[in-house]
């Protein structure tokens, strides 16, 4: 059930797509008019919101791929889950970092216990646990099964985590950072935000292509190592040089 040998040529279009998506986001968010209330700071939203959105998307993809692996037992699903998890960690980390950089000038504190930001930080640690779990063994199938079961367990618990965090925060702080309750956003800002979200999603897809390629190559190395009629373990043991017959 392992994959046929990976494509030999390495596609290059994903790198270009990533660069273009990044550029589009940068240009769009730099040229739009600043928010009346927040001024220039509002521009940070155009990278913070898409990264938080990507953190959610990558998380869902990882969990869906994990479930598919458990069902189909095909390692390509495991590779997709792992690729999305690693990309997810990066975007989650970025969302947290940007959230802090935005909060400091706006509210004077690095960390606002905003419900969505808190949930993003929890997902960050679930991702770290997932990636750490993948490093506990080199056996492809064992690794895939453990990761998949944790994946499904996480997707089952995360709605409850989401629920509890939401209730907990709405009890204490109604307004949320990501969807400022303030006056409706200017349409130009809303359009820019949408562009940024779409550009980030495209960047995510391109990253997935390359990261899956990497995962396939890494698995190919492991499979090649294991399939080759490598030396038999016992062969490494030879008669000791001291003892009978050598004195």
């Amino acid at each position: 059930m392992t994959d046929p040998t990976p494509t030999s040529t390495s596609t290059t279009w994903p790198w270009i797509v990533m660069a273009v998506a990044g550029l589009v986001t940068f240009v769009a968010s730099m040229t739009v008019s600043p928010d009346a209330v927040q001024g220039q700071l509002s521009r940070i939203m155009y990278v913070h919101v898409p990264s938080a959105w990507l953190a959610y998307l990558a998380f869902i993809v990882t969990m869906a791929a994990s479930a598919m692996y458990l069902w189909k037992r095909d390692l390509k699903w495991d590779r997709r889950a792992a690729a999305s998890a690693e990309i997810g960690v990066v975007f989650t980390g970025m969302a947290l970092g940007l959230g802090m950089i935005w909060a400091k000038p706006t509210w004077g504190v690095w960390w606002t216990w905003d419900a969505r930001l808190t949930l993003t930080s929890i997902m960050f640690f679930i991702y770290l646990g997932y990636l750490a779990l993948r490093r506990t063994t080199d056996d492809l199938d064992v690794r895939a099964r453990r990761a998949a079961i944790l994946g499904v367990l996480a997707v089952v618990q995360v709605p409850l985590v989401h629920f509890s965090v939401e209730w907990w925060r709405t009890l204490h702080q109604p307004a949320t950072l990501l969807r400022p309750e303030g006056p409706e956003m200017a349409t130009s800002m809303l359009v820019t935000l949408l562009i940024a979200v779409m550009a980030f999603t495209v960047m995510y897809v391109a990253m997935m292509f390359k990261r899956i390629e990497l995962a396939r190559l890494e698995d190919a190395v492991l499979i090649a190592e294991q399939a080759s009629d490598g030396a038999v373990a016992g062969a490494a043991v030879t008669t000791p040089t001291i003892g009978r017959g050598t004195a």
Partner: protein
Amino acid sequence: MTSAEQWNWVLLAYGFAYVVLVLFVVSIGVRISRVRARLGDGS
């Protein structure tokens, strides 16, 4: 907070995002070429 100070924060945010994304993408590229070398069919 003056507009200039605000720009500092915005540039810090974009700088941070840029560094994180570039480092990650480069790391994928490096790991791919290294594994390809090990597999023997250089891309």
